[in-house]
C-alpha cells in the first residue's frame, strides 16, 4: 500500500511539473508574454497583447496576416465575452496588469481608463497620422476625453428602428414618418395579435433604446443633449412624459410577456420569425438575422420619427504604461487592425467599421441606410453619454415604472437625484 501511495504521489508531482512545462498551452509564445503592463521586448521581437471581444472573429485572420508581414512584432490576441471583458479589464486596471491594447466602448464606458491615466494620449499620433482622413470623425470624438484622444476607433454603430416585412405586409403597413403614425401602427399590431416591440428589459440597455428615442421626441434635441450632459434638470416634464409613455406601452401590452426580465438576445429572437413587429437595433443585426437562418431582405429599417439616430463607437485603447518602442509597435498594430485594408478583407464579419473608404458587403444591406440616417443627425447612445451611476438609475427607473413601483414623476425625481449625487461627488473628489 505504501509503495502504491508513494507511486501515486510521485505521479502527481510529475503531472504537476508537466502541467507547468506545458503552461503555454502548446502555443509557441514567448516567455513571460502575458497580460503584463508592457509588451515583451526582446532584442528583435515585440509582443503586443490585445484583448478583443469573442465575436471579433476577423481579428484572428488579421493578426495572422500582420504577424506574417511583420516578423519584428507579434500580436497575441486574447478574447472575452462582453461581461467577462468588462470584469477582466477592471481587475487588470486595479492590479496594474492591463494588456498593451484592449477593446472597449466610447463615452462613459471607456472614460474610466482615460480619466484614471491608464491610457496613452494619442492626440499627437492622431494628428501626425492624419486620423480624420482614415476614420469617421464622430468615432474619434467618442473616444476623446478632455481633449485627449484615448483610443483607435474600429466600430461606429448606428441604432434605429427595424421592422419585419412579414408583419408589415400582413397588416398592410408601411414605414411610418410621424410619431402619431408609429403609435397607430403599434396599436394595429397589438390588435392584429402581434407583439409590437421586441425589447428585453434584462440589463436595461435594450429598453433604453426606446426610452432615449421617446426622450428625444418629448424633450427635443437641445434639452436631450443637456440632460445627457447633466446641465439640465432631469425632473422635467419631458422626462415625466417619457416614463409615462413607457408605462402606457407597458400597460397596453406592447412588449413581450415578462419583458422586464427578458434577455435582449431572446427578445430579438422573437423578431426574426415575425412574432413581434419592431426592434430597435443596430447595424450589426443583418449578420445576426442571417446567422439565425432568416433572410435579411425580409426586414427593413426606418428612422424613429425624431430627427436623430442613436450612435456609439467601439475602440482599442492603448496602455499608458508602455515604453516608446512598444507604444509604436502597439499603435502600428491598432492602426492595422482598424484599417480599410482589414475592413475590406473581413467586411462580412467585421461589423460597422469606423474606417473611411471601405466597401460594404451585399450581405449587410441595412448597414448603409442606417449609417446614412445617422449622418443626418445623431446623439451618443444613453448608456455611454451618461455617467455609469446615472445609467444604472435609468435602468432601475425603467424597471420600476414597468413594475408599477414608481410613478413617472418618481422616476424623473430618481433620475434627478442620481444626477445631483454624481455631480456633488465629482465636485468634491
Amino acid at each position, binding site marked *: 500500500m*505504501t509503495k502504491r501511495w508513494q507511486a501515486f504521489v510521485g505521479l502527481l508531482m510529475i503531472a504537476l511539473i508537466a*502541467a507547468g512545462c506545458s503552461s503555454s*498551452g502548446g502555443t509557441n*509564445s514567448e516567455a513571460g508574454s*502575458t497580460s503584463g503592463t508592457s509588451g515583451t521586448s526582446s532584442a528583435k521581437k515585440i509582443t503586443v497583447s490585445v484583448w478583443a471581444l469573442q465575436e471579433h472573429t476577423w481579428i484572428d485572420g488579421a493578426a495572422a496576416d500582420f504577424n506574417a508581414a511583420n516578423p519584428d512584432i507579434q500580436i497575441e490576441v486574447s478574447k472575452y465575452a*462582453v461581461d467577462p471583458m468588462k*470584469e477582466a479589464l477592471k481587475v487588470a486596471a486595479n492590479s496594474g496588469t492591463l494588456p498593451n491594447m484592449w477593446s472597449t466602448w466610447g463615452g462613459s464606458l471607456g472614460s474610466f481608463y482615460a480619466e484614471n491615466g491608464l491610457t496613452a494620449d494619442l492626440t499627437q499620433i492622431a494628428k501626425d497620422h492624419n486620423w480624420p482622413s482614415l476614420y469617421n470623425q464622430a468615432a474619434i470624438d467618442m473616444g476623446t476625453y478632455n481633449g485627449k484622444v484615448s483610443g483607435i476607433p474600429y466600430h461606429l454603430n448606428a441604432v434605429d428602428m427595424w421592422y419585419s416585412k412579414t408583419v408589415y405586409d400582413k397588416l398592410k403597413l408601411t414605414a411610418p414618418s410621424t410619431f402619431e403614425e408609429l403609435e397607430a401602427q403599434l396599436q394595429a399590431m397589438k390588435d392584429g395579435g402581434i407583439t409590437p416591440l421586441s425589447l428585453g428589459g434584462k440589463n436595461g440597455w435594450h429598453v433604453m433604446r426606446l426610452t432615449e428615442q421617446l426622450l428625444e421626441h418629448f424633450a427635443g434635441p437641445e434639452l436631450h443633449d443637456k440632460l445627457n450632459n447633466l446641465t439640465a434638470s432631469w425632473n422635467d416634464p419631458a422626462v415625466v412624459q417619457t416614463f409615462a409613455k413607457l408605462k402606457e406601452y407597458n400597460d397596453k401590452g406592447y412588449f413581450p410577456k415578462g419583458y422586464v426580465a427578458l434577455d435582449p438576445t431572446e427578445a430579438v429572437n422573437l423578431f426574426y420569425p415575425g412574432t413581434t413587429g419592431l426592434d430597435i437595433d443596430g447595424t450589426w443585426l443583418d449578420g445576426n438575422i442571417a446567422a*439565425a437562418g432568416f433572410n435579411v431582405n425580409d426586414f427593413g429599417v426606418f428612422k424613429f420619427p425624431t430627427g436623430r439616430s442613436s450612435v456609439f463607437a467601439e475602440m482599442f485603447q492603448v496602455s499608458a504604461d508602455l515604453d516608446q518602442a512598444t507604444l509604436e509597435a502597439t499603435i502600428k498594430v491598432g492602426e492595422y487592425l482598424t484599417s480599410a485594408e482589414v475592413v475590406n478583407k473581413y467586411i462580412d464579419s467585421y461589423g460597422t467599421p469606423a474606417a473611411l473608404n471601405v466597401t460594404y458587403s451585399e450581405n449587410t444591406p441595412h448597414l448603409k441606410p442606417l449609417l446614412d440616417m445617422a449622418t443626418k443627425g445623431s446623439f451618443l447612445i444613453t448608456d455611454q453619454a451618461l455617467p455609469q451611476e446615472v445609467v444604472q438609475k435609468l435602468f432601475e427607473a425603467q424597471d420600476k415604472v414597468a413594475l408599477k413601483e414608481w410613478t413617472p414623476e418618481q422616476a424623473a425625481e430618481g433620475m434627478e437625484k442620481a444626477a445631483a449625487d454624481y455631480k456633488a461627488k465629482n465636485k468634491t473628489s
Partner: protein
Amino acid sequence: MEQRVHPISKALKYVLIVVLAAIFLLPVLFIAFTALKSSSDLLTRPFYMFPEKLQWHNFVQAWEQGRMSMYMKNTALIALVKVPLGILIEALAAFALTRLAFKGSEWLFALFLIGMMVPMQATLVPLNMILNKLGLVDTYPGIILIYLGFGIPFGILILRGFFRTIPKEIDEAALIDGCGVMGKFFKIIIPLSMPAIATLFIFDFMATWNEFLLAQIFITKDSMRTITTGLLAFRGQYSANYPLMNAGVLISVVPVLIVYVAFQKYFVSGLAGSVKG
C-alpha cells in the same frame, strides 16, 4: 419484526419519486431539445416542442466550432492535477488536526475555515498582482495553486469530520504493530476513509470542472481556456447560438457524469460520515 408497508403507500412513494425525477429532468430534456433543433426551428416553435427534424450534426459543429476538445483537455489537465493533489494536502492537514495531539489544533482548524468565508471576488485584484509578480498568469500551475487554496478549507472540513469517526484504538493497534506516523496515515486512515475521499473527489472535480470566475480572469490565452469560459464563444454581444451552446453544454457535462457514476457508491456514506462529530 419487519413492518409491512401498505401497497398504496408504496405506490404513492414511487409516484412521488417519479414526479420529482421528472421535475429535475425537465430542464435537461429542454436543453436536449434545444441542442437538437435548428436555429429557425428554435425561434419559430415553442421551446418545449420536440425538434421538427433532429439536428445531430449540432453536436459535431459544437465540438468542432467550439474547439471543445481543446477546452476539455485543458480542463481535464487542471482537474486531474488539482483534485488528487488537493485531496492529498487536505487529508494530511485533517490527519494532523485529528491524530497528532498538538496545542491549538482547534484554533488552527478554525483558521482554515476562515478561508471558506472569504468571497472569491474580493481576492481577484491581489491574486492578479501576486500571479503577475510570480510570472504565473496564463500558466496552469498559477490557476492550480489558486484552486488549491480555495478548495483546501472545504476539503479539511469534510475529511476532518470523517477522520474523527475512526476509532483511536485502531491507531494504538497500528502503533503496537510497528506502524509509524506516515504508515498510520497511508495504511490505516486513508483506506478507511475512501467513502469520504470519493465524495470529496466528486465535489472537487465538479467544482473545478465548472469553475468560471477565476478561469476567465487568470487564463487569457485561448489555447489554455477551460470548458466554462470556452462555451461563451457561442454567445456574442448581440446574439447567441442557442442550439450549439446547448449541444456544447451537454457534451461538457459528460466527464462530470462519468466521475459521479464511478464514485457514487461511496457518495452517501462519505457524506454522512463527514458531518458526524
